[in-house]
């Protein structure tokens, strides 16, 4: 990287996140005044008020401009969704990990203006007020989590619209849709009109936001003494007057158009998993090619512009949660994820010059954000995969690797058009979506081992003694494994019902009270339908529930089947007693459960067949249920860091895991359960029917030596093998356990150590000790070939 980028990179690493009250203050001001507009218009006008009044920041080295807060790392809050208490602010300010400093004036504004207005009005308050006791019991017991109590539905990725059209063009599309409204025959026409008007206003808001950057750049240019910088500022002003009002004409404008779009989406609401630029390499390729041919751009200049954009991503920490506890670790990462390679709309190889350019940028920048991935199709060249693996081998957790052909197959199974599927990819951690056309909403994690625990206790949560499930029979009376599994299915059915009933209410609350007109502008076919992103406007509307701990659940069932029903060496009563007492005084029993059970991850049919049963049981319960937006439910398997939380909420399990220890992550084997090396893990993982999911996550931790010599070729072969077996995703943590221990002991020396956590990378030192230990304990694969 050049000196400018190096300075900016240093600054974004060193600047500490802090909480900016600007957004909360402006939003509260607006809502306190406007009492008459329709809900969509009120959202749009509030957004416009924000974009008109928020501070404009242009840093001295910047080429790509715009911040969500008033400065880099200034992190706004979203009180209309969830309103921080003063205690929250205090904890965020002082907790050991992922601190957001909160100054005195912010606390005062929060106390005097924000809390009084939003108490009882925030989405979080509305949601909890509507939930049933059954829902609350299961939620509090750690059966499932609920995404929308903290953040708005998001999980979408830009298609190619902003590279083809300006917001003014989209306003014309809106005008056309408005003109077509049929008030005589369409009972929803007036709702559609309000929604379309709101979209139009939100387009104005972002055009104005860009214009204000142009004004600021001109103002700075007038004062600038360095003629080179003066020229740059003039160019910035020119770019900001072109995009996003009009379609971009060149590479620089295309990058800036994306960034303004991104800022619009993440300022309007704090959408889950941020927002991502979609198939960035493919979208930018025509601009790159044209500028290179005309001589207007060199590869170095293009790289510099992208690196300036990377800094921008890293400047935006995730908005902090509410209801936080001091021990709880958050993450600064907001899950923007750059997809590279894959397929083109026509199904041909999508790797191009910009793909390799972006990989160089990723390699150069080594930043927490944005995350990045390879979309690897069988049609993509090995050179692309190996370039990616070179970066992986450096050991900071990026990029992760996806099976692009499988992503297409998953989307097709869900009923998408083939071209929409090919233009799709993944966002967040591993979640499959049709970019620019789908709202795919993750609604919460689901604790599979806990469901088994409740089953074994006849509907009672043994951690609290509270009845949270259904009475499915006293496990001591079960005479066969099949009987136990039937009870597990019944319990699962009941608890998924509870979750989905809650989701239905929450979906309608968002559809009614929290439209997202700016995001709706960008997603097909919200304009054509005159419907909001949160109300079924997109072409596809999917709701996900994420299964957590499939391996822990499988190993636990396997232990019961093997020891109690097949071999009859342990009685159910003994097992339940031992679990209730967390194996105290029963270490021998625990060790035989831990060591002498056929476990998932060893290419062992006994255990892997149980995994298929667990998979099918969860799939049958969830997949195909109708949501409230004309779409339906699907499953995926990722845990982010939730396997640690769910583990802490689950007592000892029959696989020999002690109470409170983490569950298995993603679809990876339970920590330490895989003993036959990575090929066996891959074989076992392929027993899941990935095509019937919306994403799965497989973590493998390798030491760096594994990539030396022809190691990259071997890892490449391993990846290709997994993908031939229809695996969805694989990622490699390349560090030695020694390094991690050293980092734990001397965090100050390892502040830049990034590890792959579970679908995203994070600074090792920002993780809680429990999560740190878990990463250390994941089986370290010593060598592939011997």
């Amino acid at each position, binding site marked *: 990287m050049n000196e400018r980028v190096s300075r900016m990179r240093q600054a974004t690493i060193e600047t500490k996140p802090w909480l900016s009250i600007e957004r909360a203050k402006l939003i509260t001001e607006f809502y306190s005044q406007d009492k008459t507009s329709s809900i969509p218009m009120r959202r749009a006008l509030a957004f416009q008020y924000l974009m008109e009044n928020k501070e404009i920041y242009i840093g001295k080295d910047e080429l790509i401009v715009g911040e969500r807060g008033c400065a880099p790392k200034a992190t706004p809050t979203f009180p209309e969704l969830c309103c921080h208490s003063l205690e929250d602010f205090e904890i965020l300010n002082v907790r050991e990990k992922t601190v957001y400093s909160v100054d005195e004036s912010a606390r005062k504004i929060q106390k005097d203006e924000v809390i009084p207005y939003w108490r009882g009005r925030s989405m979080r308050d509305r949601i909890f007020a509507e939930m049933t006791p059954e829902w609350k019991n299961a939620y509090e017991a750690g059966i499932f989590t609920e995404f929308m109590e903290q953040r708005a539905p998001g999980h979408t990725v830009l298609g190619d619209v902003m590279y083809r059209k300006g917001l003014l063009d989209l306003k014309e599309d809106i005008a056309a849709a408005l003109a077509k409204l049929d008030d005589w025959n369409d009972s929803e026409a007036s709702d559609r009109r309000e929604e379309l008007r709101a979209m139009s206003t939100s387009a104005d808001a972002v055009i104005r936001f860009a214009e204000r950057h142009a004004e600021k750049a001109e103002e700075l240019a007038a004062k600038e003494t360095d003629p080179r910088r003066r020229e740059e500022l003039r160019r910035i002003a020119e770019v900001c007057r072109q995009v996003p009002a009009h379609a971009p004409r060149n590479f620089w404008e295309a990058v800036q158009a994306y960034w303004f779009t991104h800022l619009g989406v993440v300022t309007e609401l704090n959408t889950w998993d941020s927002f991502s630029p979609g198939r960035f390499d493919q979208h930018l390729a025509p601009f790159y090619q044209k500028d290179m041919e005309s001589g207007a751009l060199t590869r170095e200049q293009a790289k510099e512009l992208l690196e300036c954009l990377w800094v921008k991503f890293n400047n935006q920490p995730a908005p902090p949660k509410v209801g936080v506890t001091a021990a709880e670790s958050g993450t600064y990462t907001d899950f923007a994820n750059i997809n590279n390679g894959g397929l083109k709309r026509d199904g041909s190889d999508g790797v191009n010059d910009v793909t390799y350019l972006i990989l160089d940028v990723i390699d150069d920048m080594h930043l927490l954000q944005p995350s990045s991935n390879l979309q690897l199709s069988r049609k993509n060249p090995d050179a692309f995969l190996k370039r990616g693996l070179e970066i992986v081998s450096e050991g900071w957790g990026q990029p992760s690797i996806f099976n692009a052909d499988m992503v297409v197959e998953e989307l097709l199974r869900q009923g998408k058009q083939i071209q929409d599927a090919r233009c799709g990819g993944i966002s967040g951690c591993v979640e499959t979506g049709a970019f620019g056309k789908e709202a795919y909403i993750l609604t919460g994690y689901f604790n599979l081992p806990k469901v088994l625990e409740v089953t074994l206790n006849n509907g009672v949560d043994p951690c609290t003694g509270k009845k949270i499930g259904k009475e499915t029979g006293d496990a001591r009376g079960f005479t066969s494994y099949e009987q136990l599994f039937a009870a597990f299915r019944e319990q699962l059915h009941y608890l998924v019902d509870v979750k989905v009933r809650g989701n239905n209410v929450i979906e309608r609350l968002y559809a009614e009270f929290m439209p997202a007109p700016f995001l709706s502008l960008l997603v097909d076919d919200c304009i054509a339908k005159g419907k909001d992103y949160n109300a079924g406007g997109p072409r596809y509307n999917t709701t996900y529930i994420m299964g957590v701990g499939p391996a822990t659940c499988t190993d636990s069932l396997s232990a019961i089947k093997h020891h109690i029903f097949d071999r009859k060496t342990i009685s159910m009563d003994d097992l339940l007693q031992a679990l209730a007492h967390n194996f105290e005084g029963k270490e021998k029993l625990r060790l035989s459960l831990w060591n002498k059970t056929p476990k998932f991850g060893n290419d062992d049919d006994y255990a892997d067949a149980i995994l298929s049963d667990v998979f099918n049981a969860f799939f049958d319960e969830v997949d195909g249920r109708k949501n409230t937006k004309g779409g339906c439910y699907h499953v995926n398997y990722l845990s982010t860091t939730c396997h640690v939380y769910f583990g802490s909420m689950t007592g000892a399990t029959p696989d020999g895991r002690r109470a409170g220890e983490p569950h298995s992550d993603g679809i990876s084997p339970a920590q330490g359960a895989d003993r036959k090396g990575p090929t066996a893990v891959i074989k076992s993982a392929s027993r899941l029917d990935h095509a019937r999911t919306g994403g799965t996550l497989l973590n493998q931790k390798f030491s760096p030596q594994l990539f030396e010599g022809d190691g990259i070729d071997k890892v490449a072969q391993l990846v290709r093998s997994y993908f031939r*077996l229809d695996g969805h995703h694989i990622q490699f943590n390349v560090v030695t356990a020694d390094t991690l221990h050293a980092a734990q002991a001397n965090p100050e020396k390892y502040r830049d150590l990034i590890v792959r956590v579970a679908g995203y990378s994070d600074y090792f030192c920002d993780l809680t000790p429990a999560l740190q230990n878990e990463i250390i304990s994941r089986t370290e694969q010593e060598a592939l070939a011997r």
Partner: protein
Amino acid sequence: MTVPEVMAEVLKDQIFFDESGGGVTISGGEPLVQTVFVEALLAACRARRIRTTLDTSGFADPDVLRRVSGQVDLFLYDLKVMNSERHQRFTGVKNELILQNLKMLAERGCAIIIRIPVIPGVNDDGGNFDAMSEFLSPLGLRNIDLLPYHKLGSDKYQRLHLSSPMEEFEPPTTQQMETYAARLKRDGFTVRIGG
């Protein structure tokens, strides 16, 4: 284990063999001590088109070796010390049979990689490498892996409270290995260190 049991394990990894060009390596001890099993396993692999490699010291019945040579895709063939007396001192047997067998395999056109375990003070003298080169060149054997002696086993001896019979020997340095490799490359061999 029976041959079908071994094949069940082998076939689990077939997809990885497809991607990497790999297959089954039969190693030991000396696999040719268990002739019946090895021949049956090789035949079973051939029937399923699994590539096979046989890792042998060459100290085997020539008839057996001739029979399996048609079933094996690649030999990893140990060459330790060219002087037969010295060979006997360090391995317990003379090397004439080993050299004859190697010549026979080479003449039958088998694919062979020569593996030389390099132990300083035992077989890393210039004379030994000269003799190897002289023997291998006319046979048309071009591929050599130099395997540096290592002491990874000494910890195990300690844990078993046994004294290591190899305690007096030290591993060669990287630089030494490079020198030996260069020596052989000079005579036109393709040499890998490790492998």
